[in-house]
């Protein structure tokens, strides 16, 4: 099984590293800018913009999780669809779904690890400049973006493994609609009532790749 994880790591390592660098650069830029703005205007005014004008300091993060999820899903599953290589995996002498589940687990775990790191940097950086009264609403606002990054990974994996082009398009429409729920325009902290539901839905869609895997194995044309 270690060899499966190693194979997956080889596939995603470039995208993973690029996402890591991109994320750290984005977060560094966010806090360099916060420091600059606070120094050159004033801290009280900066807080005021966040609290009463709804100007967040973290908008740069909005599409980062989505791009990361998309990148890792493509790096992991696109090579499997070239010449239908995943068929070789399905012919290995293990239970039909086990390898697919392990592949998927590896991708999701890598993505989660990246997101946890980004979250930690975000909280650490924010706590230098802001009190919890600003950090908590900020976290409520960025959490759906990160959940959306995971949902993107799960839905893109489903789409890429789907063997029939028409259904890829249809899955794509549903996937795009679903992922859009995570990044609607809302006031700071506006996502609070829906966070648990979105988390539950994200956990539920983590297994939908089995559907494409099944269709692939059964030779849907």
């Amino acid at each position: 099984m270690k060899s499966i994880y190693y194979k997956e790591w080889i596939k995603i390592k470039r995208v993973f590293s690029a996402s890591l660098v991109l994320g750290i650069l984005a977060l560094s830029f966010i806090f360099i800018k916060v420091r600059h703005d606070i120094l050159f205007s004033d801290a009280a005014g900066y807080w005021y913009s966040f609290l009463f004008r709804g100007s967040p300091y973290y908008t740069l993060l909005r599409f980062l999780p989505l791009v990361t999820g998309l990148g890792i899903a493509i790096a992991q599953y696109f090579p499997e669809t070239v010449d239908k290589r995943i068929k070789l995996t399905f012919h290995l002498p293990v239970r039909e779904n086990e390898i697919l589940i392990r592949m998927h687990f590896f991708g999701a775990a890598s993505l989660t690890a990246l997101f946890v790191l980004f979250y930690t940097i975000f909280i650490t950086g924010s706590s230098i400049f802001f009190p919890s009264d600003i950090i908590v609403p900020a976290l409520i606002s960025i959490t759906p973006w990160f959940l959306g990054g995971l949902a993107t990974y799960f839905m893109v994996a489903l789409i890429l493994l789907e063997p029939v082009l028409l259904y890829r398009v249809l899955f794509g429409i549903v996937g795009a609609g679903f992922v859009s729920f995570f990044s609607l325009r809302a006031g700071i902290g506006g996502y609070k009532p829906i966070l648990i539901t979105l988390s539950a839905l994200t956990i539920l869609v983590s297994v939908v790749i089995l559907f494409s895997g099944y269709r692939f194995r059964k030779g849907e044309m």
Partner: protein
Amino acid sequence: MVKISRYILILIGILVAAVAIPKLYWTIFEKVPVTTTIFYSCTLNDFLILGSEKTGPGGRIDPKGNKYNTAEYEKNMPLMFFRQLMTDGKMPDSINGVKMEPSYINRSNSFFKYTPKKLMAPVPTLYPLIESQSGRVALTMPEDYFRIAGRMEFIVAKTNKTDEEKSVLFTKALTEKGFVFPAGIIAGMPTTKKTKDEGYFVTDSQGSLFHIKMKKSQPYVAKIETPENFGIEYIECVDLKTSEYYCFLITKSNGVYVVMDEVYDLQRFPVENFDPYTQSLKINCDIFNKCATVIGDNWLKATAMDDSYNVIKTYEESWTGKYDRADGKILASLIPFQISLSSPDTEFVSFYFFKSPGYFWIISNLLMTCLAAFIIIRKDRKLKDNIIDLLFTAITGVYGCIAIFIFPNRFK
């Protein structure tokens, strides 16, 4: 597990369709509704209605049915259009024996608007406490922000550290007046663009109401007497040039009050059964009258008062509701429900479920179920292997029918 993964996808498909299809329908087919606005005329001593189903958009009418053109409308709303009337030389020198001075008219005019979105929105937990008596002409923003949790705590923005001395001083002042921490509602006007600063109106954990401000760097705290079980739901401070009252209060028992300036007396507005979660409220005030209008889904009720809050006239009007119009009826007969991530009544994002009124959608659901069964049979598949799919369609209608074929059943 594979079967479960398909059902999860069907649920996601139904959710996406229930959001997207009604949204697309309304974007294409929704008719522009007529927005009705109502004012009280001090010259007619009656209401003037702007835009209604009787007049169409922009039409002006009074409750007796008399129609008014722009010039007549402005002439009968002299306190609203006094600048235009003065420019045209048509402004009367006095009305009801009161001499018309522009500064007096301007000072007495005020407008307050409440919508449920104000109540159901994320609120900050940090506020700036502006110095009320700095001796300076202009108000200035402080360098720190306060929160009222376990105590009243001031955090200096520049250092992100607590100002212990100031925090202890204000906490002590609040405790001495009987404030029980933490705060419930904190309402103020955190801006320097106002005529004067009156600090904040705050409820404590017991629901008691307090007025907190800072005068010459010292705390000013006053406890405001309220009836037992008053249950304040919402507070909005206003900056009236007349200094008649500090703020509006809306209570659990659906009462609308104002807190009178300096004396802290509560004055109830004669607005009955106002539901702050679903209804809007507009209050127009001028030298002679106050006009409070409660607006529901497809109705409004206006109450005109004299300067002492005594009711002098009321007016009610309703119009065709969204689902009584052809566009709404068609949609309600096609879909069993719709889901939206936003609502006109709240700033929060959530899955807002709205069941279609009436029962025509049941026929649509049955038709969709028959269509699904027909397609399944045409594809040489057994109905007994697709019972759950048909159940999805029977319950969710067109959404389910779309979802089960986007994620087709190949299980035996």
